[in-house]
Every structure is written in structure tokens, then in C-alpha cells.
């Protein structure tokens, strides 16, 4: 089996990081996605046999978390935040605009397989609302126009760098491997806490200087 040959050693390496093997279930499912693009039945069966769990237990986990996909997604999976803050700041409009622009609905993929679309819940980046995540990398302060331009360049094979995080945008499969716990060497790149996130701290430092000094 292809998947098995491709991942067996990596699975063992990940499993070895945990005192109890079953704790490795979530990284292993990401690892499956890094090869297959989504959680395939073979993936579920392989993870179950690696961890000594039943297939029902593994599929219970795989179907609970929305980050695990049961159908192929695009090379670039575009998540538009439509939780309250992003929604009022333009998230709803962006999502509607992208649907129309790409001609696909929620949880669907363009026919060239490049881009898929999903409305996502808050990603704790409200200070950069409205937010788009591509393969779980941040694209801050979006507008309907910038979002359309973003997906066009993704489809053209010229992915722009994310607003924060790594210097270059990884593919869905590449980032699935990162989520599985494999180091892609991009961990320390880019902005970590951006200016909007630090505003509050600056105000606090200004108003209560002692605290700032103590820091």
C-alpha cells in the first residue's frame, strides 16, 4: 500500500513522542492528509492498526474535527472567517464574493483542483479582521477585491506570501505535514506578533509605566 510505505517510519517517529500511543491519533491523521490530501479509508485503517484502536474510534475522531477532510480539497484551501467580528468587518461579503467569483459553494473545490472554499470559525486573529486563511496561514485585513486577487494568483500558480508566518505559502499537503509535527524549517520566519496585536500592550505600557519598566 502506497500510503503505508510512504508514512510508516514517520508514523513510528510521531508515535514515539507520546507516552501513550493513542495520543498520536491527531498528528497521524494530519500525516495521512499530507500524503492523500484528505482522510481516506485506507488512512483510517492504517492509523487504527498503528495505534491499536478500532476503525470506529479513529473515524469518530476524524469526523469530529473539521480540519480533517473527507473529500479532496484544493491545493490551496481557502478559509474565510465568518465569525461575528470578521463577518461585520466584511467576512460575509468576502465569502459571498469568492463563491460567486470561483463558481463554487461552501466545502467545494474548483474544477482545476487548485482552490477549495470553506467558511471557518474564529481563528483568533480578530485584530486583523476580516481574515482569510489559506492552508491555515494568515492573510490579514482582506477586502472582497484583495480576496479575489488572492484566489486568482493561487489558481495561476503564483501564491503570494502570507501576511505573517512563513516566507512562502505551503501547499495543503505540505502544511498537513507541519500539523502532523514534521519540521519544514520555516518555523521562525515572518512576523510572529504583528503590530495590531501589540497595540494593547503599548497602551498598557504607556499608562502604567512601572509595569513596562518591570518588563
Amino acid at each position, binding site marked *: 500500500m502506497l500510503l503505508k510505505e510512504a508514512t510508516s517510519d514517520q508514523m513510528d517517529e510521531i508515535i514515539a513522542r507520546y507516552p501513550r500511543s493513542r495520543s498520536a491519533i491527531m498528528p497521524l491523521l494530519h500525516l495521512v492528509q499530507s500524503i492523500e490530501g484528505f482522510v481516506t479509508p485506507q488512512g*483510517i485503517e492504517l492509523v487504527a492498526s498503528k495505534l491499536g484502536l478500532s*476503525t*470506529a474510534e479513529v473515524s469518530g475522531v476524524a469526523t469530529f474535527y473539521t480540519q480533517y477532510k473527507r473529500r479532496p480539497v484544493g491545493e490551496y484551501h481557502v478559509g474565510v472567517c465568518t465569525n461575528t467580528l470578521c463577518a461585520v468587518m466584511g467576512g460575509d461579503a468576502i465569502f459571498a464574493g469568492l463563491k460567486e467569483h470561483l463558481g463554487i459553494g461552501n466545502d467545494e473545490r474548483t474544477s482545476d483542483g487548485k482552490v477549495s472554499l470553506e467558511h471557518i470559525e474564529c481563528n483568533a486573529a480578530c485584530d486583523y479582521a476580516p481574515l482569510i486563511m489559506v492552508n491555515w496561514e494568515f492573510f490579514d485585513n482582506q477586502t472582497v477585491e484583495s480576496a479575489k486577487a488572492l484566489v486568482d494568483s493561487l489558481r495561476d500558480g503564483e501564491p503570494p506570501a502570507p501576511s505573517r508566518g512563513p516566507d512562502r505559502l505551503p501547499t495543503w499537503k505540505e502544511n498537513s505535514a507541519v500539523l502532523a509535527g514534521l519540521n519544514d524549517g520555516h518555523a521562525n520566519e515572518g512576523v510572529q506578533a504583528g503590530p495590531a496585536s501589540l497595540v494593547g500592550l503599548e497602551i498598557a505600557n504607556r499608562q502604567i509605566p512601572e509595569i513596562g519598566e518591570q518588563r
Partner: protein
Amino acid sequence: MTITNNTENVVAQAEMVTATIDGFEVSVPKGTLIIRAAETIGIQIPRFCDHPLLAPVGACRQCLVDVEVNGRAFPKPQASCTMPIEPGMVVKTQLSSPVAEKAQRGVMEFLLINHPLDCPVCDKGGECPLQNQAMSTGQGQTRFEGTKRTFPKPINISSQVLLDRERCILCARCTRFSEQIAGDPFISMSERGALQQVAIYEKDPFESYFSGNTIQICPVGALTGASYRFRARPFDLVSTATACEHCAAGCSMRTDVRRSKVLRRLAGDDPAVNEEWNCDKGRWAFTYATAPDRLTTPLIRNEMSGELVPASWPEAIAVAAAGLSKSRAAVLPGGRLTLEEVYTYQKFARVVLGTNDIDFRARPFSAEESAFLASHVVGSTISNADIDSADSVLLISFEAEEESPIIFLRIRKQVMKRALKVGTVAPFLTPGASKLNAMLYHSITEIESFFTNKSLILVGERAAQTPGLLSKVIEIANSSGAKIAWIPRRAGERGAIEAGAIGNLLPLGRPVSNATARVDIAAAWGIASLPSGPGLDTLEILKSAATGQIGALLIGGLDPFDLAEPAIALAALDSAFVVSLELRESEVTKRANVVFPVASVTEKSGTFLNWEGRERGFEQVLKDTTRVSDLRVLTMLAEALAAPLNLRDSVSAKAEFDSLGEWDGERTPAPSEPIVAAPTPSAGEAVLITWRMLLDLGSMQDGEANLAGTARKANVKLAAETASEIGVRDGDLVRVSTEAGSIALPLEITEMPVRVVWLPENSFGSQIRRSLRVTSGALVRIGSEA
């Protein structure tokens, strides 16, 4: 039979905690949950997910109560099924707290939002905790005006279990049972939010031997049994407390009848035996008693035509009596009778036929086993409590999950609770043994440092197929102080031993060879003397019948293909005058001279003794039957032979048995046979090991296709080395053959000794005794089918 509690296992006085619930003071052992503590003073808090035998989960939120500890109230109601009582805690349930009452009402309203209005067509309606508690804790009107979430319904999660997802309230009782109790997590919670549902993994159905328990504990009608679905309303059923007739675990059961028809069986609540569980065989295998080939009238073989023809009872009794009195006769009662019946069979043999030629064993056995039963099994008081308190448990020739599933659950509970050490002597680690985290030993001689004087050795009836094994077990027990318990497969075997339905024993362990014992029993029976010579065993009886030394056979339950040598049995049946007491047409009735139709378990009352020797009494379920029990047939025969048994019914038989008292004289000495080396196979040969699966082609599972659909599929198991020696790979067809015949099944490569082959004994595609005509330990040929 007295069952003593294990006195070494006295529980230390638990530390008590005092609190108030609804103004009443309660004192409960530390760690007691609020919901349990409330029960002790008769306060019922509504609940769904809570189950006393499952770990708390707090999934349904129906049991909310107000709680105050150290004068500080929790800001909102708490789940009483997950919170233990603390000293000085003040609990207010729905009875004294309007807040708790409102919270429970609110939870109920939420639970009902997506619940369909199925009650009129739902199996659970009438005995449904949701229905009942919606009445006690809910409100008459719903405020929900949206559209209910619906699912296609129902879906099969196995051939026997159906799931209506929209009825499910997500209490996780079923998934917790399967994981925590059975060790079969083949169902789990899938999806999330409003779509959350119980699910199997598509390719792996819910084929657990214990799946029926989930139906019983589901607090709604989400899980139903294919065989019972839509058959009855609970309030139309008449229930009788019964005992399971299948295996020697002896589960308590409840049998439900509607208009003289058994519609379902449920696990009874018996903490000392089966807690609240049973296995799927016990639950669903009862249709054999209503099979179309059930015998209805006595039959006599017509001398001219050779055919069996219906006859009246008096006529059949007369013919049978004449045939039994004409020549030397022997008795083969079988291993599935009640204590009362088998007691009557042996009394018939000794009083009416004047012989000790009686043997209940309708399966492979040995003379070594006869001695072992007399020295170590009869009168034994080892019980389930010994499993609970053992330091370690060793299974020998005993696959607990297949051969006595409730003992398996009992052992597993201790494995989960206190990491009980378990070992198994077997060719490979079965799924059942691995769920017990068992250590695997290929031979009893390789076991070291396993035993203490609080170890328990559970020996299965298959041990008799390995010469010297039982003697070796005794030797180990003697040197280590470990206890030995013997676990037969059939429900009636222990009773047969206590009743003395074997050539070397009179009732209650009295040796036939002991003159005092014989006088004892003769006096009790009011006769001058008892036959003194040791009786022949099953095989000797059949051999003598085949050669004409024995002219007549009185047979209870016997299948020639259960015996080690079916050919001898068939020859015996062909040549002797055979009187058969049977439920249904069988290999015996086909060859019998007189056939009496007898009552099934539902048509009689009586007592089984389970493996512990514990009485499992049961009432007659079908009260208006005209069926006649084995016991009545025997008393009629005895009267016709002018040797009355003085046993009117099962009550008088039980009373007479009980009045005999224990034997305090000398016991039969233990066997001491050498271990015989197994044959050494050359390439292309292997030593056969085989046992029965829980669900197989056993005739008492006939007529229940839904249950049969969950049986484990038959395959042949070989070690990788053996497989490559004969040029086969995993999944290939392998043919196993003897002079008599052959079996071809797909191969499962298994970690096991080389040149050993395993096959199931009586499964679809693998009927060892019919095709191969050998038992475990035989040398067979193996080869590629391609």
C-alpha cells in the same frame, strides 16, 4: 450444593461520608456519587447516561441538582452522576430546589427538540426512560417551532442491531459499554454538533458477542434488535425469570412471551454471576425450539417398512419398555439437561436398568478426565468470587470469550480494574485473550513464576483431549497452592456430575466403588442394593453397542458428530435398540426405534448448575404447553417396567437430590497420567488444534439468521514459516485433509508454533468432525488449494 462466600475477600470497612439531600441526612461510603446516594434514601434523580456499571460521563445533563459545599453554593446546577458526595455537602434535587427542577425541565426540552414522535411505532415505547422521564420531568407542550433534524432510518450496524439515529439522545451508554465492558469499540460517536451520531466504521460492522446489551441499556429506542423489532408492545408481554440454557456461565435471564410465543430474552440482574449482561447467543438463540422439524408426537419404527410412524404415548411407552428390558441397556443423557432430569436419568439407569453404564459426556473426553471430575470437580465450591480475588488467572484449553462469554467479562473486569494477571495456554493469542492482556504460553510446561496460592487455573473441557494435561494441572496446583476450576461448555454438565450421571460416581460425589456410598444411596432410594461395578464411559458404551454386547440405548441429547469417533457412534445407533428423547429430528432419531418428543427449556421448570455449582433455577415460561419433560417420560417408562422412580416432577426430584446430603467419605484419587508428546509432523503435515466459536453451526442456534450473520468468519491459521513451507500466502485457500475428508478455507497468517494448524470446530465451511473426523491433537495434511 453450598456456595460459600470467599472469606478471604472481606472488604475493609469503607470510610463513610455524611451529607444532606433534600434535607435528609445520608451516610455513604466515600466516593459515592450524588445520584447513587440519593437512591439510598429513595430519591430518584432523572438520568439517561448514568449506569451503575459504566464509568460516569455526564453526557446527557438530565441529572442536574443544586449543590453546596462548605456553605458555598455552586453557581449553577451540577450533574449528580459525576460528582461524589463530600462531607457536609448540601444537595437539593428537583424535589426541594426550583432551580434544579427548572434545569432538568430545560434539559428535557432540549433533548426532545430533535427527538421524533415515534413512540407509537417504537419498540421502547412503554418501557422507555425517555418517555417516562418526559412525563415526570418534561412539560406537555414544546416551544420548538422549527423542523426536526431527521436521518434516514434505521441503519443496520450489524445484521442483528439496528440504529435509528434520530431517536438517539447521545448518552454514550452503548459506546461506553462496548469499550469498557466488552472491549469491542466497534461503535463510536461520530460527526459533531447536531449531526453527532453513533456510528460504526463502514467496513467493520458491530460484530461484538455482547452487542445485545447495548440494546437493553439504550435509554431510548435508538438501538433495536432485528429479530424483535416491531414484534410486540412491552405491556403485552408476560415476563418470566429464567436461566440461560446455552453455556456453563449460567446467566440469569428474563424471557418475554406474547400469546404463547417467546419474543425476546433479556439479561437478568445477578451481580454474583452475570451482573446485568449476557451474550448474544443467550439473548437471541432461542428459535431452535420452534423450528419446523420440532417433534410433536411419539414415533415408533415400523418393523415392516423401516419408517418411523406416529404412535400414541401408551403404545410408544410399551414398545420402548419392552426394548429396554430385553437386553443389556445403557444410558447417554447428554450434557444439556437440568439437574432434576439428569438425576432422574441416572436413577433410571441404576434402579430400573440395574446398571452404572451411564455417561453424560457427548463430546471428546478421557478416562483421565473421569478421574479428574471425581477428584476435583464434584462438590467444588470455587466461584466467580475467586476470579474477583485471584492474584492471577491461567486459562488452559479454554477460550473464555468463545466458550463462556460471561466468565470472559468477569475476568476482563478485573483486568481493567486492577490489572489482574492472565495467562493462556493456547497455540496463538486470540482476540478474546488479547482483550484480557493475556500472556501466551504454548505449553503448560513452559510456565514459570506465574502461580501464587491465590492463583486460579480455569481448565476447559477440551483439556481432556490432551493426555496428561489434567494430571499436570493437578500437579501444578498441588505444588503452588493454586485453585483449579473446570469449565465445561454445556449448561448441564456440572449438574450431571453432581447428579452422578457418570459411571464412576453416584449422586453428590459418592464413588460407585465405595460400598458405604452405595448403601447410602440404596437406602435413600428404598431399594436393596445398587449395581457395584464401575460403569462404562460413552465411548465404551457405544463400542459395546456397535458389537452387540449392549443391546439397547436410552439417549437424551447426543450428536454423533460431537464425539471423537462419529463412526462408532453411528454404528452403535444402527445396531442397538435406541430410545431417543429429543426436541427435534437428529442423527439419533433417524436411527431410533422409539422417539419421544420432549419439552424445551421454556416448556418446563428446573435447575441448571453452572460451572460454579450454583443453582440456576428457572420457571416454566409457556404455562399452557402440553409438552412432556424428559423427567415425565422416564417416570412413565419406569412404571411400565414395574420399577417406579417415585419422582413426580422436578420439584420432587430436586427435593430428593437435596435430601441426599454431601459425601464426607473418601474421594476418588486424582489421576496421574504422563504427558504424551504430540505427534511430530513432517513438511506438508500439521497438528490440528480446534475449538468451537461462540456463534457457529450449533443446532441450538438454528433459525436465527440475524444472529448467525454476526458470527466470526471461519479461516485457517498457520504460522508464516508453515505457510511458506507449503507455498501459500495470507488469504490463499489452504486445504486441510485427513483420510476421511477435507476442508478448504482462506489462510490467516498467525503468530503460532510451526506445523500447527487451527480451524474452527463447527463453523460454516469448517465442520471438523463431519469432514475430517478427528479431534485436536490429530495429525492432518495441509496444502495449497491452487
